[in-house]
Each structure stands twice: as C-alpha cells, then as structure tokens.
C-alpha cells in the first residue's frame, strides 16, 4: 500500500528530474501542501473537492516557484539545486507548522468508502482499493500524456536535445514549467488522497521524501517505469522484511538503495547515461 503512495510521489520526482535535471528536495513539501489543502477543503466541501483543489493548488504554487526562483538555478551545478530546493522545503514545512500547528491531523475515510470489498481471496478496505485503482489510472494517464500527445513529444525531445527543440520552434520553457507543475500536482494529489490513510503533520514532507529518493534511485533517476517498479519493489521489500525480520524493515530499503547506486547507478530501468558532475 505504501508502495503505491511512493509510486505517486516518485513519478513526479522522476519526470521532473528527467525534464529539468533538477533533484527536487522540495518534492516532499509538495506532498505535504497537497495533504493540508486537501484536508481543509475536504472538511468543508467533501473529499472529492479536496482531491481536485489540492493538486491544482500545488501545481500553481510550483509554477510560481519555478518562474520566480528555480529558473535561476537551471544552469547552476546540481549542488546548488539541491541546496535551494532543500531551503524551500524547510520554508514550506515551517510555514505549514505555523498555519496548521504542529499536531498530527487526519481526515476520516468517507462513509461510502469505509466498508470492505471482498476480493475473493481477501477482504480489502474500499478506500484503499479506490486509491490503488486511482494511482494506476493516473500512472497510465501521465504515460499517455507523455507518449501520445504533441506536447509529450516536445518534452521527450527536450530531454534528448534541448537546443535542437528550441531551434525547431518548440517551447521548451513552457514544457519545463508544465512538467514541473505536473510533477508537483501529482505529489499534491497523492498527499490529499493519502490523508485519510496516513495522518499528516508538518514533518510529513521529509518523511515521505527520503523513501521516495530510494524509490527513484532504485528504479533509475528520470525513468518513468523505473519509478513505478521502484515504488512497488520498495513497498514489497518493506512488507516482506517486516514479516521476516521486523527490526530491519526500515534499514533494508537503504541497503538496497546503496547497492543499486554502487552497482548500477543508473538504476534498474534507467538509461545508462554517463553519470558525472
């Protein structure tokens, strides 16, 4: 289950890295903003409204951030990008703490979905089932968007050769910003959708960010299906270890991450680009 949440967060992280070459330490903050916005909207207008408003709000926030601050960092070295997004993450986390307080909050699962569904072999909570189906739909939608639309073509071409796409008249800046907003929106949606399952507190951003890095690294930084595979693998790895050797259930994913980085830094499904500088 947690694996699916990782998939949703990691997907945004990986497409942003693929398009912008930006390692976004603020991605967890997007998840947290989505969770809080979703929470507030859902309390007044129901969960469905929260699920619509949260990703849009986070995407808007991301666009503003991109246009005002991050675009100055596209050409800086990756270290500076990590630092500035890390700074943004702190500012967001602390702002959330000031606005919503430091306590843990959660939103109850809507009554209509709080039953269980009989899947034949097991009983599964209905909300979690909807969540899982939703993630699958979204993954496919994003994939179709990137693979089957003209816009997606510009995005994919820009990853290969930015200058050439610009020369051919493709609007690379617009594509970059859109991808950044899309990635952020996905994180925001995941945050809003997961708040009935996992409670939210201001630290939520970082506590989901770090495992998401594990997922993206294992799958391959910038790889679309890598993020999906990585998310599911990490979720499974944690579940299995919890059964076999509970004390190691947290440490095992970092061991996996280190092994992947050392043996195959481009990840399981990443293209074996030259990893330097």
């Amino acid at each position, binding site marked *: 289950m947690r694996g699916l949440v990782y998939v949703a967060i990691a997907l945004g992280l990986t497409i942003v890295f693929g398009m912008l070459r930006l390692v976004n330490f603020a991605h967890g903050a997007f998840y947290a903003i989505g969770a809080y916005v979703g929470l507030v909207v859902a309390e007044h207008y129901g969960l469905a409204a929260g699920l619509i408003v949260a990703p849009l709000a986070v995407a808007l926030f991301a666009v503003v951030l991109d246009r005002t601050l991050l675009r100055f960092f596209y050409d800086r070295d990756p270290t500076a990008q990590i630092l*500035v997004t890390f700074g943004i993450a702190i500012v967001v986390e602390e702002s959330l703490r000031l606005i919503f307080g430091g306590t843990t909050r959660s939103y109850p699962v809507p009554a209509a979905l709080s039953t269980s569904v009989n899947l034949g072999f097991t009983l599964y909570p209905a909300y979690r089932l909807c969540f899982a189906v939703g993630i699958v739909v979204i993954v496919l939608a994003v994939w179709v968007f990137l693979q089957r639309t003209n816009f997606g073509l510009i995005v994919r071409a820009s990853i290969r050769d930015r200058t050439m796409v610009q020369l051919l008249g493709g609007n690379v800046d617009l594509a970059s910003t859109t991808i950044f907003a899309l990635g952020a929106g996905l994180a925001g949606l995941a945050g809003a959708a997961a708040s009935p399952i996992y409670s939210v507190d201001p630290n939520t951003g970082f506590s989901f960010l770090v495992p998401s890095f594990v997922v993206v690294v294992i799958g391959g930084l910038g790889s679309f299906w890598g993020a999906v595979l990585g998310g599911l693998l990490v979720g499974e790895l944690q579940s299995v270890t919890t059964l076999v050797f509970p004390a190691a259930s947290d440490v095992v994913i970092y061991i996996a991450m280190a092994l992947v980085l050392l043996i195959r830094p481009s990840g399981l499904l990443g293209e074996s680009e030259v990893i330097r500088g």
Partner: protein
Amino acid sequence: MTVAGELRFYGLTILGLILFPFLIHPIGGYGGLATEVLIVGIGSVGFNLLLGYAGLLSYGQAMFYGVGAYVALLTVSRFFPDHPNFWLALALGVAFVTLMAFVIGMLVVRLYGIYFSLLTLAFAQMFFFIVFKWRDLTQGDDGLQGITVPAMGLGPWSIDLTTPFPALNLGPFGDLSDLHYWYAFAALVTLAVLAFMRALVRSQFGEVLGAIRDNEERSALIGFDPRRYKVAAFVIAGALTGLSGALRGLYDTSIAPDALTVETSGNFVIYTVIGGVKTLFGPLVGTGLIMYLQNVLSAKTDAWRLIEGLIFVAVIVFLPGGILGARRKSARAELAKAVSAKAGP
C-alpha cells in the same frame, strides 16, 4: 606564510574565542550556548573541507556526528565502566568514526554530483535505523541519558570540566562564572582544528583537492589520483564531525537517535553554506548564527526555523559564497579593480 601572518591568525582567533561568549551575552546568548556552538562548529569546519574545498555535498554527516557521540558515551558507560576515562572515550569515538568514514569513503567517491549526495544519505539512514533499532546497545529512541562522564585526567591533575570559572561581574557582558571549564577546552580544540584546517588547505593537498573539484580529469592526467584525495577529504571531514559529536555527547552526558537524522545532516549543510563555503571561519560563523537563532529566537517566536529557512534560501540566491565569502569576494573585486587601474593606459 609570514611570521606576522601567523601571529595575526593566532592572535585574532584566540582573542575572538575569548571574547565570543561575552559579546553574545547582551543579545541573549549564554555560556552554554557558546560552548555548544564551538563543539558543533568543529564539525562544520571539518565538513567544509568536503563541501567547500572538495566540492562534495555529503548529505550524511549526521552518521559521523551521532556515532561519534554514541561510541564516546558507550565507552565510559558500557565498554570500560570500571575504568572510565575521558580521553579514551574521545579517542575511541573519533577512531571508530575515522574507520567508518574510510570504509564509506572508499565506496562513495566512485559517484558524482547528486548520486554522491544520495549515497551518503542512504548510508546515514542505515546508521540511523541501526542505532534506533539496536535497543540492547543504544536504548533505542530513549537514547543514552544521564551518563556519568569522568573528569579529564591531565598528567597528575584531574579536571572536572563542568566546574564554573570564578565569579567576576562583567556588567552587560554577564558574569565569568557563567562559563564552565568546558568552554576553555572546546575553545582550545577549536583553535587546534582551525590551525590544522588552515595548514591543510594551504598545503599541496589543499591545492590538489581544489584542482580536482574544478577539473577532475585534468588532475588525473597530471598524475594525481582523484579518488585517493577525495577519500582523504571524506575521512578528515568525517573524523572532525565525529570529534564534534563525541565532544557533544560528553558535554551533554546524553545522546538520542535524533542526532543521526537527515535533519542533523542538513544542519551541517545549512551552517556551512550560510557562513561561507571555502572560508576558514565561515562554518563557525554560520553555526553560531543559526544555533543562536535556534536557542534565543525560539524562546520569542515559533517562526524561528522559518526565519532560518528564509535566511538559507536568501544566502543561496544572493550570496552563494556565504556571509564570509561575500566579504572576500568584494575584497577580491577591489583588488582586481586596483590592478586594472594600474595596468590601464
């Protein structure tokens, strides 16, 4: 390296270390804070060798800091409870971390840029969860609390570092008895670390490290093995961060797994970047500024960490060289102006 230059460095540094705890008193600082700033600052100064001089952004310094503290405290409480020795605790803490940094360093220097940062992060998380889960040894999330730290043996003497200095009223700058012997010890170690770091970055080692940061391939072709230099930098930075952690553990007589979190690793990054990478005193200044905000401002407003984050972002955007880096840059710009004026028609 002129005699005058040496005298100036030692004179001003010693003067600064003596005045520091008193100068922060009127703005709400106190002796304990001054001591903590120096102890943590030692780790930042060491980390700067990695981030500033070698250009390697480690996101895992917390593992060296935390493990240094745990090993030092376990030495007196668990490993040698019958003959607790201050120096042994410090030495074992640093030695263990040095070994750890060597093994991890050999692995991480194979990677570059973000991959390097992410791998150090992964290792730090491993150590966090090992410390967190190994309850028999580390007491898990309770941490080691109220450890009896022995007095510091020095030849025939035995010095209890928690002894306050004699009372002496200094008006607006507080009272001398606000300081414990711990401050004097931390100041001596800080002085030694600064002198070591100053010599190191001026040595051939420092030059080569800078050359590798700027162009690794070229350095390799000239005949310097980049990995050996990077491992060395990683080990020295790790050892100094471990020293910082061991001192902190012995000073606090306690340590909790929080010391190994991503947040602690991030703090070393924040301190060093705000103060100024590639400057000798920058990391110390950054550590002082942010720890001051944490300790003094937090009593007044809940927004202190927001302010910290905003300062951090502002520094990255407007002062990429940090507080001290900006000063040096403007000095360099003036020098360039003066030179070009002379060379002009």
